[in-house]
């Protein structure tokens, strides 16, 4: 099996081999082979796009069940700010946080509080000389992975800071150690996540050898249990430590707004993100200092593990932050804390390239061009590749055959049988007739639905 951990997986029992996911994957990481989808591990960035669009629920996010918290003596919940947008008619974050204690957690450490520290540190970072501008946010792990596989020149532009989740976990762990005297193994820190990308970020982090987060729970699983508990919350405890800045990280634009004076651009949704990255690579935008990107529409409130519509959730977050102070958490001194820095920078991984040998790659490219010319150019997906050109690439790389194209296959069968017919004997005539009436794989999967 793969060495790389992925939080987006396939349930092959549910997969009918349709073409929905292969066409929408931003890194062309999915193929249909033998009637089932397959994810090419090195290319997958765990953005969750295929989970969102699979009509058969065959793409599954991996996360921890709520029951994992029971194996730890001291349990800390790290709610993502996106969680706050899930509840209707709420005007006090403390109700959610008190509810989390009711679920069995001993302590709650808001990710939005750590986000305020990251914002403050980013403001310091932005004032430095010699950094690569524009600086690209490092908050969305799906975007980081996208940059790592497709945009080598942009790797250096990424803000070299851990995410608010990671910072919250590090601070909470240190505090728990001191206050409880427990060992690390007894302290369980659980992120309540809007997306599978964050699960991957914990299991195999970027910029750090090991995450301080113990496990990742899904907002969608915690939400119903929490909602019913919240109805019963009487006295709330004054737990919240977030201001407008921290809570605003839930939606797109929040992180940039917190930088106050920087010229920024904020883009959401994986297709828009790709367009912005392409433009940045070609130096098409001038005068920008900061780029905030989130793989999901609307920002993290649009993550695939949330329950509410992202725009509704964002409106709710706006209401929640109404009477909050600007910021509640502050760095102890006006300096970037050591723990926030990445241990190593983002590295380009050339998984999309044909070969590391340029002459060989050029030969392969010419061959891809030649084969592309033979294919019908319909991009129908029946061969299992997202486009005719992509099939040509798979053929040249050795993962597919030209007869995977249903039109080429049909033509070949037709040619063989006419040849045989012209030779007098016609043993294949009836076979040919049947073949011509046979539905193409695409029609077959339509029928199976």
């Amino acid at each position, binding site marked *: 099996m793969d060495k790389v951990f992925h939080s987006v997986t396939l349930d092959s029992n549910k997969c009918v081999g349709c073409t929905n996911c292969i066409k929408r994957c931003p890194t062309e990481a999915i193929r249909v082979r033998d009637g089932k989808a397959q994810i090419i591990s090195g290319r997958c960035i765990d953005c969750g796009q295929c989970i969102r669009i699979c009509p058969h629920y065959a793409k599954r996010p991996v996360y921890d069940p709520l029951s994992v918290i029971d194996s730890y003596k001291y349990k800390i919940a790290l709610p993502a700010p996106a969680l706050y947008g899930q509840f209707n008619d709420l005007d006090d974050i403390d109700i959610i946080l008190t509810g989390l204690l009711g679920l069995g957690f001993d302590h709650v450490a808001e990710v939005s509080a750590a986000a305020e520290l990251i914002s403050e540190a980013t403001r310091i970072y932005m004032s430095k000389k010699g950094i690569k501008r524009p600086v690209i946010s490092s908050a969305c792990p799906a975007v980081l992975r996208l940059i790592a596989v*497709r945009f*080598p*020149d942009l790797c250096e532009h990424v803000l070299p800071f851990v995410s608010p989740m990671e910072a919250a976990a590090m601070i909470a762990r240190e505090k728990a150690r001191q206050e409880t005297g427990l060992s690390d193994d007894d302290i369980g820190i659980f992120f309540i996540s809007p997306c599978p990308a964050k699960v991957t970020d914990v299991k195999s982090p970027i910029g750090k050898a090991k995450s301080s987060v113990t496990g990742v729970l899904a907002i969608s699983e915690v939400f119903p249990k929490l909602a019913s508990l919240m109805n019963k919350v009487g006295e709330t405890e004054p737990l919240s430590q977030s201001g407008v800045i921290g809570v605003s990280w839930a939606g797109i634009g929040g992180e940039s707004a917190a930088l106050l004076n920087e010229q920024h651009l904020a883009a959401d949704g994986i297709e828009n993100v790709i367009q912005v990255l*392409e433009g940045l*690579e*070609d*130096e*098409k935008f001038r005068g920008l200092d900061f780029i905030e990107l989130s793989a999901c529409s609307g920002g993290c409130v649009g993550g695939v593990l949330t329950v509410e519509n992202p725009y509704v959730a964002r409106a709710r977050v706006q209401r929640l932050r109404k009477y909050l102070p600007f910021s509640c958490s502050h760095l102890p001194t006006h300096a970037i804390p050591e723990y926030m820095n990445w241990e190593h920078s983002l590295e380009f991984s*050339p998984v*999309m*390239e*044909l*070969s*590391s040998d*340029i*002459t060989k*790659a*050029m*030969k*392969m*490219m*010419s061959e891809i*061009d030649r084969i592309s010319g033979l294919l019908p150019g319909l991009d129908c997906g029946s061969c299992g590749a997202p486009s005719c050109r992509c099939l040509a*690439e798979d053929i040249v790389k050795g993962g597919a055959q030209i007869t995977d194209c249903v039109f080429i296959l049909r033509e070949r069968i037709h040619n063989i049988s006419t040849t045989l017919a012209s030779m007098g004997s016609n043993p294949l005539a009836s076979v040919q007739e049947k073949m011509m009436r046979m539905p193409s794989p695409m029609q077959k999967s339509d029928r199976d639905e």
Partner: protein
Amino acid sequence: MSSSISLHFDVSGDDFTRAGEASTQVKKTLKKIGYDSDAIRRVAIAMYEGEINMVIHAGGGTADVEIYPDRVDIVLTDEGPGIEDVEKAMTAGFSTAPDNVRSLGFGAGMGLPNIEKYTDSMRIETEIGVGTKMFLSVNAGGSNS
């Protein structure tokens, strides 16, 4: 024959919204073959500027790209009005772009200066009323940028 990849594009002068597609395509090809990333960036920018110029100043044209392992050659050909004073056109900020184009953010007069900056060689052949031909070359691993 030394191995190379040839690409040809017709750059339409009618549809402004499609300007930049040829350079995007070249960039995709270069990325796929794992080309030197600095050279990709320079090719993408220089060719984009040349392509846009053909669209806004010359009513379209053609682009021929030849990719060698160590160099990319680009020839941009149009049958537009030609450039009256090449030296003047090359100065930063000089532009004859009409207002409607400027309102889209083009016409800052930085196209030709940028092409010069990002390529390793640049040659312009132009004749009033006949057209313009631009020969650009970018070395992979070259230090110009």
